[in-house]
């Protein structure tokens, strides 16, 4: 330890109470930063996870054309009046005809994690007298599971049974309750064309999303294609998941030229979810930074008081031959020490708070405790912010101390 650091240590430890307050304020700021950001990120993750249990990152489907061509050219002279009544935008084709080709093309892209096709139609499901409307999804079990981890949400039965049994159907738990059926029971599915077919319930699924659980029925893609008399390249949707869902928009733009169908990233129509995430993150950062800045003001205040209190000692040091740089070093060392002490205890306390939050019971769908994300970056950022702020808060008083004119003080 050099002489300046030694002096800094003595000055700092001669006021244990102030030292403690300063250190604690940094500790508090840093641990809050870690806990808040971890918690918010955890909430975001759960939200995202829930969002993507049923929704893909990208979706290709047959949409109404966006630009509608004018039926008649605008009149060329002002004497002619053009009146078109009841103009309609009609979809000439249903579904996707070349779903298999699209799937193969998309699957080989870099950023794509998985692709699956679905054939979704509205149907009625009947159990004797009770009849409810439902969405029948013909799915490819393997890739569906890869995208949505469907097997994890099955409360009973086996997803892959669908491939082995053409008359097998899996119902959402809410839907099964609505029509009063259970495992092994038979239900009748009728299409809007009036066709009917009997299925056997071989599984139940519960994702936690009520609206889906109350209306969803799964069969294999082949079964659905047969039921609706479509060929094996037909599907209503091609669903794509990416390694990083934040890239959905870019990948959508990349896929769009490959097909004439509409390619939609998840953010479209889910803008509120995206902005809610951004909002939550901003609040977490704003609140924790505010705490750190307040801690900074506290340190500034304490260091300023110290400089005023020790003004005589500073004058003596300067009279003995310590220069301005030495004085800055002596006082800056004190605030850096506060920052480091507060920083390390803050990291510890932050981790503790994070662990506690992570253990608070909280039941919602797939989670049983409050969500929490453990991120090394948060710890690193919190620590650096803490240090930067204490450094700045210490620098101003230190500079003031270095400018003290010893004669003015020593004259008495």
């Amino acid at each position, binding site marked *: 330890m050099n002489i300046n650091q030694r002096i800094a240590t*003595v000055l700092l430890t001669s006021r244990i109470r102030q030292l403690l307050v300063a250190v604690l304020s940094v500790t508090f700021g840093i641990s809050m930063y870690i806990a808040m950001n971890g918690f918010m990120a955890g909430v975001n993750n759960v939200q995202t996870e829930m969002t993507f249990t049923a929704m893909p990152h990208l979706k290709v489907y047959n949409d109404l054309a966006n630009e509608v061509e004018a039926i008649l050219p605008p009149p060329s002279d002002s004497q002619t009046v053009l009146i078109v009544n009841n103009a309609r935008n009609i979809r000439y084709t249903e579904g996707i005809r070349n779903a298999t080709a699209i799937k193969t093309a998309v699957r080989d892209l870099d950023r794509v994690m998985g692709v699956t096709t679905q054939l979704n139609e509205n149907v009625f499901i009947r159990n004797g007298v009770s009849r409810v409307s439902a969405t029948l999804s013909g799915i490819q079990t393997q890739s569906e599971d890869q995208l949505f981890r469907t097997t994890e949400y099955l409360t009973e039965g086996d997803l892959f049974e669908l491939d082995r049994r053409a008359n097998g159907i899996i119902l959402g738990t809410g839907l099964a309750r609505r029509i009063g059926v259970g495992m092994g029971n038979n239900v009748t599915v009728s299409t809007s064309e009036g066709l009917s077919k009997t299925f056997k319930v071989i599984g139940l699924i519960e994702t936690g999303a009520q609206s889906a659980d109350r209306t969803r029925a799964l069969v294999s893609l082949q079964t659905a294609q047969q039921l609706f008399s479509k060929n094996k390249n037909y599907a209503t949707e091609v669903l794509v998941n990416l390694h990083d869902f934040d890239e959905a928009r870019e990948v959508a733009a990349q896929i769009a030229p490959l097909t004439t169908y509409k390619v939609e990233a998840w953010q479209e129509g889910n803008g509120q979810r995206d902005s809610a995430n951004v909002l939550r993150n901003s609040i977490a950062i704003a609140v924790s930074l505010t705490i750190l800045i307040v801690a900074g003001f506290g340190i500034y205040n304490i260091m300023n008081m110290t400089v005023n209190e020790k003004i005589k000692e500073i004058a003596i040091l*300067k009279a003995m031959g310590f220069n301005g740089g030495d004085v800055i070093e002596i006082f800056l060392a004190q605030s850096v020490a506060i920052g480091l002490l507060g920083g390390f205890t803050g990291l510890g306390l932050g981790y503790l708070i994070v662990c506690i939050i992570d253990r608070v019971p909280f039941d919602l769908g797939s989670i049983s405790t409050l969500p929490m994300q453990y991120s090394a970056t948060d710890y690193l950022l919190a620590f650096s912010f803490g240090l930067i702020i204490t450094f700045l808060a210490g620098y101003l008083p230190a500079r003031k101390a270095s400018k003290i004119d010893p004669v003015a003080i020593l004259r008495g």
Partner: protein
Amino acid sequence: MTALSVQQLHKHFYEPVPFHVLRDLSFNIEAGEFVSIMGKSGSGKSTLLYLLSTLDTDYEGQITINGTSLTGLAQNQLARFRNEHIGFVFQFHFLLPEFSVLENVMLPALKLRKQSRERIEARALELLYLLDLKGQEYKKASRISGGQQQRVAIARALINEPAIIMGDEPTGNLDSVNTKIVFDIFRQLARERGQTIIAVTHDDEFAANCDRIIELSDGMLV
């Protein structure tokens, strides 16, 4: 050899009213000389000492110590010069209250870093014993009497074996026994080591035994 040379030194205060404290002082002090500065209270003795010690740089004229012209040097250079060549005992014996007596004495040497810590400590203890402070070394500086503090300040001024030792009433708070001890130390340092001593004093006996007396009256040499 001339240890200290002052040429046409003027000092003004502008607050609260313009005041010409030191008027055209010129004198030389030889190396190894033991000089007293005397004069009425308010005659400008302390003011002069602050100028000579390079702490106060707001003056007109020329100050040269050991051949180095100090007028116009930068603050950092002056700090370095003070540390190495000037020992100062203030009128009000200023110590660092949080540090032990021993550390107070060692500080200027630790700053200078010309010797190992052990050597500095041994030398500091030697000085403290010399000044009859045995038993006080590890007490906090705030926990000893005024006279003891003044002697600690003297020990601190001597630690770097400076070319010039300046004292502003260095024996002001001491009894006759301790005054004699300090006087003898100064005398010895001047005679045997050739260190120059400049001491402000109101003590006629102290002054009478010096090599020379510089007397100030209303900011002028008498």
